[in-house]
C-alpha cells in the first residue's frame, strides 16, 4: 500500500524509499487502441478508422474487468493507448465505475489518461474530471511544426498550449507532456525550443523519449529502404541538454525518460519498474500477477471475439521465478535514478568482470547495498550484463 498522498508529496521523485515502496502498490492498465491515424513510428496495438467499434470495445473491457478475481484496492489506474482521448466520456464513467465496484479503488487513487491535444476540449476535460480522472498525459511530442509533421501528428504547437490551460482549469491535479527527440532532420535548436516551450507551460511531469525506429512500422520500412535513421550521438546530446535544462527548472529525473516535480511521479510507472503486480485490460495489454506475465490478443478483433465468446483473451504467458525474476527485478529497477536494492543479482554483477568494466567506465556504482546507473544512456549495457550472469 502506498503511504504517500498523490499530491503535495514530500519525498522527491528519485527517492530510494519511494522507488522501493512501489513494489507493494497495486495498479491497473486499460488499453484504448483507437486512433485517428497511426503515427509512422508507433508499434503499439492501435487501430485507425475503426471507431465504430468503440462501444463494443468498452463493453468488452467491462466484461474483462468482471472476469478479474478480486484483488487489493487499486492505487493507480492508467488509461493508455492508442488515443484514450478519442473515447467518449461515457466510456470512462462506465470503466472507472466498474473498476471501483469490481476491484475497489484506494482512498486517493491516481487515475491517469493519455490524450492528444487536438481532441482536447473544456467539455471533455470537465467530463473526465467528473468521471474521476485526475492526471492527464498529453502526446505533445514537439513544439516544432515540421517535426510534428514528420511524426505524423495531427496537432499544432498552439493546440498543446490550449490543451494544458484547459486541463488546469478543469482541475487535473497532474499534467504531463510527452516529448520526442532525435527525429531525423530536426536540428538541435528545434529540440531546445521544444524543451523551452514545454517548460513555459509549467507541467508537473515531462517524459522525453528518443525516437526509436521499430521494424514493422512505416518509419521502420523507410529506414530499411535507405531513409535517414535517428543519429544516436545527436540523441545523446539532446538527452543531455534536456537533463540539464529540466533539472534547472526544478524537475527531477527519476527514470531514464521521466522527470517530475516533487509529488508528481507516476505511480503506475513506478509500480511497473519496481516489479510490482499489476492487472491489465484490453487488446495487447500486459499484466503481471502472481509470478505470471501474460498478454492479451493484440488484434482488436481477436480480443473482442474472445471476450464476447466468454473465453480468456490471454494470448500467451510466462512464469517469472527464481533467478530470472531476480535479474528482471534488477533490469527494471536500474532504469530509476534511485537505483535498485542490489540483492543477489547485484552482488553477482559486482563480483563479475563485466561489472568491473561497467564500474571502471563510470556506468554504474554500488552504494549502501544499492546498484545505481550513473550514465542512464547506457542502461541497456548494464541490463545485458545482468542477463549474462551465470545462475548461481
Amino acid at each position, binding site marked *: 500500500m502506498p503511504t504517500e498522498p498523490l499530491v503535495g508529496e514530500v519525498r522527491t521523485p528519485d527517492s530510494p524509499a519511494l522507488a522501493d515502496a512501489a513494489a507493494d502498490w497495486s495498479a491497473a492498465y486499460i488499453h484504448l487502441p483507437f486512433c485517428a491515424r497511426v503515427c509512422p513510428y508507433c508499434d503499439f496495438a492501435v487501430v485507425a478508422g475503426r471507431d465504430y467499434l468503440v462501444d463494443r470495445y468498452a463493453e468488452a473491457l467491462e466484461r474483462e474487468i468482471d472476469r478479474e478475481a478480486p484483488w487489493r484496492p487499486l492505487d493507480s489506474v492508467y488509461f493508455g493507448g492508442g488515443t484514450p482521448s478519442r473515447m467518449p466520456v461515457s466510456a470512462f464513467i462506465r470503466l472507472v465505475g466498474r473498476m471501483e465496484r469490481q476491484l475497489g479503488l484506494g482512498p486517493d487513487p491516481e487515475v491517469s489518461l493519455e490524450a492528444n491535444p487536438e481532441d482536447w476540449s473544456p467539455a471533455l476535460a470537465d467530463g473526465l474530471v467528473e468521471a474521476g480522472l485526475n492526471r492527464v498525459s498529453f502526446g505533445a511530442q514537439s513544439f516544432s511544426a515540421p517535426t510534428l509533421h514528420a511524426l505524423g501528428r495531427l496537432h499544432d504547437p498552439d493546440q498543446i498550449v490550449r490543451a494544458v490551460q484547459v486541463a488546469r482549469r478543469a482541475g487535473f491535479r497532474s499534467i504531463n507532456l510527452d516529448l520526442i527527440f532525435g527525429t531525423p532532420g530536426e536540428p538541435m535548436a528545434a529540440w531546445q525550443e521544444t524543451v523551452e516551450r514545454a517548460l513555459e507551460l509549467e507541467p508537473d511531469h515531462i517524459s*522525453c*523519449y*528518443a525516437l526509436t525506429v521499430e521494424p514493422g512500422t512505416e518509419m521502420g520500412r523507410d529506414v530499411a529502404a535507405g531513409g535517414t535513421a535517428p543519429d544516436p550521438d545527436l540523441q545523446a546530446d539532446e538527452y543531455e541538454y534536456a537533463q540539464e535544462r529540466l533539472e534547472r527548472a526544478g524537475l527531477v529525473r527519476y527514470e531514464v*525518460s521521466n522527470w517530475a516535480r516533487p509529488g508528481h511521479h507516476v505511480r503506475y510507472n513506478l509500480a511497473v519498474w519496481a516489479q510490482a503486480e499489476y492487472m491489465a485490460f484490453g487488446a495487447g495489454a500486459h499484466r*503481471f500477477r502472481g509470478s505470471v506475465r501474460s*498478454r492479451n490478443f493484440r488484434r482488436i478483433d481477436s480480443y473482442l471475439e474472445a471476450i464476447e465468446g466468454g473465453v480468456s483473451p490471454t494470448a500467451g504467458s510466462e512464469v517469472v521465478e527464481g533467478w530470472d525474476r531476480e535479474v528482471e527485478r534488477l533490469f527494471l529497477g536500474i532504469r530509476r535514478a534511485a537505483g535498485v536494492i542490489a540483492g543477489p543479482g547485484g552482488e553477482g554483477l559486482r563480483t563479475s568482470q563485466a561489472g568491473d568494466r561497467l564500474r571502471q567506465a563510470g556506468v554504474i556504482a554500488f552504494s549502501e547495498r544499492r546498484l545505481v546507473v550513473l550514465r542512464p*544512456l*547506457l542502461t541497456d549495457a548494464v541490463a*545485458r550484463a545482468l542477463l549474462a550472469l551465470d545462475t548461481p
Partner: protein
Amino acid sequence: MFPSARIRNFCIIAHIDHGKSTLADRLLELTGAVSARDMREQVLDSMDLERERGITIKAQAVRLQYRAVDGHDYVINLIDTPGHVDFSYEVSRSLAACEGALLLADAAQGVQAQTLANAYMAINAGLEIIPALNKIDLPAADPQRVTAELVGVLGGGPDEVLALSAKTGEGVEGLLEEIVRRIPAPAGDPEAALRALVFDSYYDTYRGVVCYLRVMDGTLSAGERIQFMATGEGHTTEEVGVLTPKAVPVSSLGPGEVGYLITGVKEIGRIKVGDTVTSSRRPAAGPLPGYAEPKPMVFSGLFPTDGDDFERLREALEKLTLNDASLQYEPETSRALGFGFRLGFLGLLHMEIVRERLEREYDLDLVATAPSVAFRVKLIDGQVTEIKSPQDLPDPDARSQIEEPYVKAMIIAPSEYIGAIMELVQTRRGEQVGMHYISPERVELTYLVPLGEVVFDFFDMLKSRTKGYASLDYEPAGYRVSDLVKVDILLNNTPVDAFSSIVHRDKANGYGRMMTERLKALIPRQMFDVPIQAAIGGRIISRETVKARRKDVLAKCYGGDISRKRKLLERQKEGKKRMKMVGSVEVPQEAFVAALRVDAD
C-alpha cells in the same frame, strides 16, 4: 624383370585443366590397362578434393603394355606429376624418374606459366620433350598459334608438335608410337649395386607407407634387406610390385622399371621423397643426386574459432601429416586468438588445400592469420636465426639485419596487359629480369619478387588486372637483405599479436593505415573511446579511434511489455557472447577473420 631396351618412362606436363588426366585415362583405355566399363573417369586423380579442383596432388605411376608397329611389346610407364609449383621438389623427383616428357598445351588457351616452368625443369633434367596440343576438337582451338608458341618456347620445328584430343581419342594411338620412337630407353646396369629413386610415397591405412620408385641400377627383389641412403633406415622389402593401375606384386624390378615398394613402415615422415634405396648386402657407393628436404615457404597460424576445438585440430593435423610429409606444424599461442598451430606450407596452393581439407574433411571452423614467410635474422652477435612468425622477431637493438626470401616469378599473359602487370609488380617491390614474346600476342615476363609480397593476394590482383588471362609460376630465388620492420597493431594500447606483420619500411604506413581503418569499421563502439594504432616499435604511424558509444538504452515508452524488452536484451546478449576480450575491448570473432582477410576491400 623386363628388358630395359623395351621400357619407356615418361610424364605429362600440363597446366590445370589442359587435359592431362583425361589423356591418361585414354592411354589406360587404349592399352587395355583399364576396361572402359571399370573406368572411373580420371583414374589417376584419386583424392576427392583433387578431382574437384582439377589438379593432381600426389604423383602416381602406371605401367602400360603396348605392342608397337615394330611388332615388339613395350612397357610404358606413365609417371604422373603434380601440376603446381608448390610441389616443385616432387615434380623434380618425378622428372628424374623419366627419360621423356609430354608437354601438353590446350589448343585454345596456349602455353601457361606453370607448364613452362615445369618444361624448363624437364629440359634441365635432360628429358626428351614431346610437345603436343590437346583439345584440338574445341571450336575455339587455334592449333597454328599454339604450335607457334610451343616452337617458340622449346625450339624445334612445327612438325614435331603432335595434335590430340584426349576427349575424342584423336591422335592418342599415334602418341604411343611417338613415345616409343622418340623417348630413349632407360640406361642402367643390371649387374651394378642397387640404386632406386623414391619419387613419391603415400600412406595406406592397411599397408603403411607405400613408396613409388624407379630402379636406376641393379635389381630390387621382394624379401631382401634394403637401406634408405639419406635417412639410413634399414628394412626388409615386404612387397614389390607394379601398378597396372591395380597393384600387382612382382618378384623383382630391374633397371628402368617403375613400381612400388612396401616395407611395413607406418610413419610417412620416415621415408623421404628423393631418397635412394640400395641393398644392405651390397650397398651402392653413393646415393642418386638431387635429394633435398622439402622446405616450407609460407607460414600461417590456424586457430579454431571455438577454443574447445583445439584438440580436434591437433588430431586432424596428425592425420593429415600421415599423408603429407611436407606439412609442418607447431603449437602457437595468440593472446587474441587463443591456442592454435603455426603451419608451414610448400606454397600458397598447398596452404589452401590444407586449410580446405581441415575445414571440409574434419569439419573445423578456423581463423587463419595472414600468410607470411620465413625471415633470416642476423643478430648483433653474428648468429643467424630463422623466424616464421612476426612475434618471434628479435628487438631492433638485438639484430643487425633481416633477410627475406625472393622468388623468380614467371608470368605469361597477352601482351596488352604488360603495362598493368609491370605496375602491379612494381608495387610489390619486384624487379624485372626478363621479357620475351612466346608468340606475337603473348609474352613471358620474369621478375624477382619478395615472396612475402607474392603470398599477400598477388595472384588475385594479377588475375583481376589481366581479366584472368595471366598465369603465374614462381620458384625460390634465395634471400636478400631488406629494410624490413615489424608493424604492431594496438587496440586500446594493447598490442594484438594476430595483427602484427613484418613489412618493408616503405609499406609500413600503408599496412598500418589499412589495418587501423579496417578495424575501425569492424570494432563496435564501446563504453569508452578505443584508440586503434599501428606502431613500429614505440612510434605510432597511424591512428584511428572508435568513438565511445553514448546511447545504449531503449528510451521510449514501452507500456508494461517487459517480456518483449527482455527478449530483445537476451538477443543482444547472445551477440555479445561471440565477442573476444582483447584487454578491455570487446572484439567480435568475425572482426579477426575480416581484418585478416587477404582479399578484403
